[in-house]
């Protein structure tokens, strides 16, 4: 437990450092984007956040798999916390993305963006995950159900992505083309630092929430021992 706390503190420290460097790099060092101008800077927050939430969802599924494999409530707790992180960062993606959309296209929301729609679907899906948890009595049954649902989530990601691909051009043509990863070195470096920062941030938040939840659990058990 002590070592656990320790690593959590360490990670959050790294997160802070990385975050500061990454953002300052983005603001002061990385060159301004040719066609999008200053608004492109949000890219350094937006995309790392998005990718981080993906990572969280996959982590949740991995833990869920372990639960079904081995059993044991600790995996349930971890999987749940990971989903929680994923949803938090997903919301951040939606917000930053919407802001970006507003500044660069003038709309808060555009259906024609793959990522957007995909994210909306995932967001709905994982919100339902919370519904499922809250309306089921805690216990082994709930742990397993949540685990299965979390695994469905990561399968849904590629499937929905494919679906949206197909839907495009059918529903309406892609209006905006944007050049993705092919950016110049300094941009890319900055991006990588920001990504690392976001991952570290998510990781430390994950560990903090987890330790909090575990503390509650052990406290409850203690109370019952005494009672």
């Amino acid at each position, binding site marked *: 437990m002590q070592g656990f706390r320790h690593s959590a503190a360490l990670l959050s420290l790294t997160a802070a450092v990385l975050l500061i460097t990454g953002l300052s790099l983005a603001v002061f060092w990385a060159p301004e984007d040719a066609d999008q101008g200053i608004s492109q800077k949000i890219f350094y927050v937006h995309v790392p956040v998005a990718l981080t939430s993906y990572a969280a969802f996959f982590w949740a599924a991995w833990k869920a798999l372990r639960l079904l494999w081995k059993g044991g409530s600790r995996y349930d707790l971890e999987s749940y916390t990971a989903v929680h992180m994923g949803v938090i960062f997903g919301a951040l993606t939606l917000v930053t993305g919407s802001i970006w959309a507003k500044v660069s296209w003038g709309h808060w929301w555009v259906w024609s963006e793959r990522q957007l729609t995909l994210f909306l679907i995932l967001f709905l899906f994982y919100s339902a995950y919370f519904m499922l948890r809250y*309306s089921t009595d805690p216990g*082994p049954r709930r742990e*397993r159900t949540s685990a299965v649902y979390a695994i469905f989530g990561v399968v849904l990601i590629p499937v*929905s992505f494919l*679906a949206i691909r197909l*839907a495009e051009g059918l529903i309406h043509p892609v209006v905006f083309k944007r050049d993705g990863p092919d950016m110049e070195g300094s941009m890319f470096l900055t991006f990588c630092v920001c990504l690392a920062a976001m991952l570290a941030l998510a990781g430390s938040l994950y560990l903090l929430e987890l330790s909090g939840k575990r503390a509650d659990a052990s406290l409850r058990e203690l109370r019952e021992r005494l009672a």
Partner: protein
Amino acid sequence: MTGYVADVAALARKDLLVELRTRDTVPAMLLFVVAALVVFHFALPAESARFAASGMLWIALLFTALLALVRAFVGERDHGTLDGLILAPCDRSAIWLGKTLSVLAFLLFAEAVALPAFALFYEDVTWELVAGVALANIGIATVGTLLGAMAAAARARELLLPLLFLPLAIPLVVGGVGATVSDDPGRYLAFLALYDLIFAVLAWASFEYVVTE
């Protein structure tokens, strides 16, 4: 193997028998489909694209299916019969498959009414549409049954199931609509088949975990 098939058959048969007695599900589905078609008839302007029409049809089918799924496990809760099935020596996935098949049967029944009605009100039914519906049915039934079993363990099931189901159903709608309106339906039908395959396997493999502790 033959034993597995026999189990599935026995379980599906049971559901159909129960429905035959109670007539709980199918009439509700019929009501909904027909009502939906009537709504379209009024809502859609005469010159509306076939695109819109078929889109409407798909929405109607999706929600009709949801009605069936919501009720699929209500009966099982009555006298703890789901426990009875779980205790039985049959493979748990057989329970899932049996349910899936019975849900599929209800869907086919509703569609046997819906599609002709659709042809009557709007435009004739193409083979692509039929193929798309057939494939989508499988996806709906497989995923829906699993989620239904999940929701059965929760409070407010009737409300929860649609929430769990809709996000997973979006790809089906995309594929189905695409198959009906696009120029080369092949891609969409293939996509639907893929979806069915993936989620059928997934649901088949994971059902045991959601019904047992």
